[in-house]
């Protein structure tokens, strides 16, 4: 549990936060650049200010950074240049005191696939490689609360999803709690169970990821994203596609290997979905899901439709003209064709 009361005057506004995070595994802090996200993290870790902060009901605001049981990975965190990759990892494991997890160097190296990089000079690493090594080093500090500031911004999306999946697995295996700051809702929705939305130094939304995301979509802050959980049925070698089944449903999908390698969730942008009341003839869209229209609301000049697929939520956008001609009503059974999954 984390409870904090922060007040800090920044250049354009005051960071004024009263926050209580009861039960979470991976919490995301979302907000535009300059909304106070990084300052919030620096205050929690003790790099800035002396604010009221409780972790697991214990006050930590009087403690220096190395006694708080928190590891912060600052934005653009550098590797130590006098050591190679293996040296950076060994350095952290050797010199970080009060380690609370027994995570080993080898486990982190294997999980993040860093073996080929171990002997490399840190200055020869690409931005993405550097971020993976920095994350490995953060893990090896051995704390149970890890705060990451834009940790994977240099990774391309498939590798970023894959690394976030590894992060979720490590969190579950070693009972580590993460707070991740990002300006990408897609990244946070993929791995976080809790979301905090910051704007101009204030928390404007807090709760489960789905609820906060919905509030963000309703304010037209972002194009809606849908996440579908699935189980793999098999890999069809003939067509090089995975055959998936939506969790707790009989409905199935065919997707490319790259989408599956990202982890156990499919991220679907609203532009990828088209709907109709009649089942489409099977053309190039082999991925058609039966769903129920839960809600439709006008946001800006478009209609945002919330669809239920056997317990999971899909969001899609319709122009006002198409919506007016469609006569869709809440409770209608619709067919959602999902494009570009194969």
């Amino acid at each position, binding site marked *: 549990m984390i409870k904090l009361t922060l007040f800090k005057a920044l250049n354009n506004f005051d960071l004024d936060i009263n926050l209580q995070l009861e039960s979470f595994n991976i919490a995301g802090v979302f907000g535009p650049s300059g909304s106070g996200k990084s300052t919030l993290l620096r205050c929690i870790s003790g790099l800035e200010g002396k604010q009221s902060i409780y972790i697991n009901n214990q006050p930590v605001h009087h403690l220096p950074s*190395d006694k708080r049981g928190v590891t912060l*990975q600052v934005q653009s965190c*550098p590797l*130590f240049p*006098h050591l190679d990759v293996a040296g950076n990892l060994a350095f952290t494991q050797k010199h970080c*005191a*009060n380690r609370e997890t027994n995570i080993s160097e080898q486990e982190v190296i294997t999980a993040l696939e860093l073996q080929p990089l171990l002997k490399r000079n840190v200055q020869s690493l690409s931005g993405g490689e550097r971020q993976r090594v920095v994350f490995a080093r*953060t893990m090896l500090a051995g704390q149970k609360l890890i705060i990451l500031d834009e940790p994977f911004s240099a990774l391309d999306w498939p590798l970023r999803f894959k690394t976030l999946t590894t992060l979720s697995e490590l969190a579950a295996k070693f009972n580590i709690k993460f707070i991740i700051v990002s300006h990408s809702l897609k990244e946070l929705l993929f791995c976080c169970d809790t979301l905090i939305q910051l704007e101009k130094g204030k928390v404007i939304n807090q709760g489960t990821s789905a609820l906060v995301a919905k509030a963000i979509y309703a304010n037209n802050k972002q194009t809606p994203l849908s996440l579908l959980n699935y189980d793999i049925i098999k890999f069809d070698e003939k067509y090089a596609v995975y055959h998936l089944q939506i969790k707790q449903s009989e409905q199935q999908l065919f997707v490319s290997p790259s989408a599956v390698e990202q982890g156990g969730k499919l991220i679907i942008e609203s532009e990828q979905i088209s709907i109709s009341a009649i089942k489409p003839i099977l053309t190039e869209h082999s991925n058609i899901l039966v769903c129920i229209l839960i809600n439709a609301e006008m946001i800006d000049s478009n209609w945002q439709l919330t669809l239920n697929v056997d317990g999971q939520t899909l969001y899609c956008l319709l122009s006002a003209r198409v919506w007016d001609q469609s006569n869709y009503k809440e409770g209608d059974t619709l067919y959602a064709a999902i494009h570009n999954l194969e």
Partner: protein
Amino acid sequence: MLQSDLTALWLTIKLAFITAILLLVFCIPVAYKLAGYKGKFKPFLEALIAMPLVLPPTLLGFYLLVLFSPTHAFGQFWFWLTGTQLAFSFQGVVIGSLFYSLPFVMQPLVAGFKQINQTYNEAAIALGLSHFKRFVYLILPLLKPSIGSAFALGFAHTLGEFGLVLMIGGNIQGQTQVVSIALYDHVESLNYAAAHQLSLILLAISFACLVLLFKFNKSIVGVKQ
């Protein structure tokens, strides 16, 4: 080569080495504090340390000579402590050189600490490393190029001392006669062959110091990511 020249050469190298080492011992902790200090006295402290850069060495030598004299409290204290005088002694010249070369050792170290503080030290704090471990296992190893650079500058600058050594130490063979003073003597006595010999040796040593300095500077650039 004259025996007296060899003695002067050895004395100069000894003086430069001792000065550079003592300055490193003094400057490393002071530079660490100074690099992180943001108080209102910062410009005053920085100016104080940089003073020898702009002062004529003879001025510095004159005041130190006054300080070392048996009529001054400090000179009397030193005599009571060691039974020797600082004026016209090798120890006196060493103390003078410490003042004279102070900014040349201090400034590369302050710059090195500032660079490390801004990036690597903060990353190590965020990882949860204690103050002691950060200093010993991270900052000092990262500071190696700056230490090398500071040593080379302090050493090379002390090699070329003239006015200050002449004021404090006089020109006593085997005790305070350094190469620059021996060279001056040769020129005064029109012994140009000996002057050439000493000059060439001094040139070679100074050049080697500068090569080392630039080598260290190159490694400092390598620290940046």
